[in-house]
C-alpha cells in the first residue's frame, strides 16, 4: 500500500487526472478490503462463532474446560493450528485436485497438530499432560477442517489466514468463558494451575473467588459443561434478539393473493 502512494506523488502532472482516478479506485478497493476483513472478524468472533453458532468441535470444548488454564491451553493450540492450516491450505489451493482435497487437508492439519503437540510436550509439560488425548484430537476438530474446506480452499492467503485467526480467537474465547464459569462454580477459583501453562511466575495469577469446603462436582463433570454451554448459547441468542428488536423495522411489502373458488 505504501509504495502505491509514493508512486502517485512521483507521477508527472500530465497524467494527474488519470492518477486521481486510479487513486480513487485504489481507495475504494482498500475500503472493500477493509470491509472484508471486518466482516471476517465479525463472522469469526460473533455471528458465525465455531463454538456458539456452528457448534463445531464440541468434544474438546466440553471435555477440557474444567479450568481456565486447560481451556486457555487448548484454545491457543487450536488457534495456532487453525491459522497455520488455513494459510497452508490457501497457499496450495491451485494444486490440490478436488477429488482428494479432504485427505490432503487432514494431512496438513495433522502435521501442524503434531508440531504443536511436540512443542507443548517440550515447553508446557504439565498442561500437555492435563489435556491428554484432546491435544492430538485437534486433528479431528470439525471447526478446523470446516474452515479449510469452506473458506481457505477458495480464498487468497491473507484473507484465509485472517479468517483462521478470527475463527480460532472466537473458539478460544468461548473456551475461556466456559472454563472460567465452570472453574468459579466448581472450585471457586480462577487461573488455578496457570503456572503449568505460562511458567512459574503465573502461580500469582491464581485468584480465590470464594472459599468452598467441598467442590461443586456437577460443574466440573461433563453434564455441567453441557448446562453452562446451553446457557451461553441462550445468552448469545438473547443478545441477538435484543439487538434485532432495537433496530428500526423495515416494512416489507406483503403480497396478498386472492383465490376465487369457482366450484363452490
Amino acid at each position, binding site marked *: 500500500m505504501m509504495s502505491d502512494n509514493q508512486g502517485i506523488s512521483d507521477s508527472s502532472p500530465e497524467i494527474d487526472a488519470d492518477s486521481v482516478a486510479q487513486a480513487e479506485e485504489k481507495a475504494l478497493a482498500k475500503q472493500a478490503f477493509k470491509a472484508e476483513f471486518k466482516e471476517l472478524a465479525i463472522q469469526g468472533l460473533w455471528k458465525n462463532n465455531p463454538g456458539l453458532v456452528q457448534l463445531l468441535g464440541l468434544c474438546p470444548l466440553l471435555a477440557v474446560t474444567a479450568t481456565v488454564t486447560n481451556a486457555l491451553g487448548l484454545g491457543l493450540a487450536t488457534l495456532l493450528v487453525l491459522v497455520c492450516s488455513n494459510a497452508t491450505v490457501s497457499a496450495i489451493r491451485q494444486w490440490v485436485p478436488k477429488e482428494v482435497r479432504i485427505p490432503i487437508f487432514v494431512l496438513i492439519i495433522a502435521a501442524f497438530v503434531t508440531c504443536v503437540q511436540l512443542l507443548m510436550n517440550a515447553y508446557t509439560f504439565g498442561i500437555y499432560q492435563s489435556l491428554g488425548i484432546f491435544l492430538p484430537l485437534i486433528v479431528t476438530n470439525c471447526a478446523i477442517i470446516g474452515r479449510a474446506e469452506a473458506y481457505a480452499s477458495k480464498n487468497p492467503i491473507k484473507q484465509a489466514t485472517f479468517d483462521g485467526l478470527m475463527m480460532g480467537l472466537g473458539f478460544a474465547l468461548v473456551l475461556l468463558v466456559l472454563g472460567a464459569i465452570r472453574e468459579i462454580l466448581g472450585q471457586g477459583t480462577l487461573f488455578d494451575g496457570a503456572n503449568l501453562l505460562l511458567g512459574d511466575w503465573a502461580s500469582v495469577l491464581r485468584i480465590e473467588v470464594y472459599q468452598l469446603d467441598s467442590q461443586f*462436582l*456437577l460443574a466440573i463433570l461433563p453434564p455441567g459443561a453441557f448446562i453452562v454451554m446451553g446457557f451461553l448459547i441462550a445468552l448469545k441468542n438473547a443478545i441477538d434478539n435484543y439487538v434485532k428488536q432495537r433496530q428500526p423495522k423495515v416494512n416489507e411489502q406483503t403480497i396478498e393473493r386472492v383465490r376465487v373458488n369457482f366450484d363452490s
Partner: protein
Amino acid sequence: MAFWIASSPHNHNQAETSALMRLVIYALLPGILAQWYFFGWGNIIHITLAVATAMACEFIVLSLRSKKQIRKQLFDGSAILSAVLLGICIPAIAPWWISVIGAAFAIVIVKQLYGGLGHNPFNPAMAAYVMLLISFPIQMTSWLPPTALMNIGLDFSNTLMTIFTGFTAEGYSVEQLRTSIDGFTMATPLDTLKTDLGLGHTVYETTQNSIFTNSYDFSLGLAYGWEWINLTFLAGGLLLIAKRAIAWHTPISFLLSLFVCSFIAYSVSPDSSASTMFHWLTGGCMLGAFFILTDPVTGATSIKGRLIIGAIAGLLVYLIRTFGGYPDGVAFAVLLCNMAAPLVDQYTRPRTYGHGNTVAKPAPSSESVNKQTETKQ
C-alpha cells in the same frame, strides 16, 4: 333456536391442578410425620427451606418468561410438591445450601427451562436429588441414625443450628452426631448392608447391627425407622389410589418387579441377598413407587406402558441396590424410566376403536400414513 352442542366427554371432572397437588401433599404428610418421629426435625426444616426456594425461583422465572396469571401458576402446588419431595429425600442434617441449590436446580433448570409444568421430561425432585448426590457425595450421604439410637440428643433449635452452621450448640460436629456408642459411624440400613456384604459378612451377621434389630419401640426388625416411614408412604399411596389421583398400574408393577427380583436372589443365596420385605421397606422404595414414578408428566401414559415402566423401574432399583455403586437406586431408576417413557408410550399406543385389527399390527400412526401417501405418489 339453536342449542350449543358440546362434544364428548360430557361428564366433566372439575378437578384442578392445585386440588390434585394438594391431595398428593396431604397424602405425603403421614410419611413426613413418621420421618419426624424417627429422625428428628431435620427433614421438616429442609422441606421448609426447599419450598421457600422453589416458590422464589418459580416466581422469578415466571416473571422473566413474562407469563400471565403468575399467581395462579405459582400457587398451583406443583413447585411446592417438587420441593416437598426433594426435602423428604435429603439427609436430615445436610447443610442448608443443599436444599436451596437442589430446589433451585429442580425448578429453574429441570422444570422451567424445559417449558414449565407439563413439559419437563424428568421428574424435577429426582433430577435435583441425583444432581446433589453426584455433586456433593459427602453431604448427601451423611445420614443421621434414628433418634433412639443417637448418643447426642438433637432438639429443634440444635437441628436448626447444625443445618446452618455444621455444629450443635454444644459443639458436636455432624460426624460426631453420626457416631454410635462404639465409635462407629452409623449409616442407613441399605448402606450398612452393602458395605458389610462387600467385606464378606453374611446378611444374618449384618442384621445383628443395632440399626436392624427390634429392641426398640415400634421396631419390626427389618430396618429400624425406615420400615415405618415406608409403611406410612404406602398408606398415603393407597389413599391416592383410592381417591383416583394416581393409577394403580405403575406402583403395583414396580413393587411386584422388585419383589420378584429380590425373591429370586433370596431363594438362590439367602446369605448374600437381603429379604424381599427388606427391599420393600428401606430406602425410598414406597416414596418412589407411589409418589414419584406415578408423576403424570414424566411417566408413561398408556396402561400397558405404565406396567412396563413400573417393571423396568423395579428391576433397575434391584440391580442398582445390589450391583451398583450407590446404596439406593430409586432416583437413578426413576430418571432412566423417565427417559424410556416416550419410547414405551410410542410402542404401547392403545388401538383406537374401529381401527386396525386384533392381530399384533400396530394402529396406523402418522408416520405410516405418511409413508402410505408417499408410496401412492
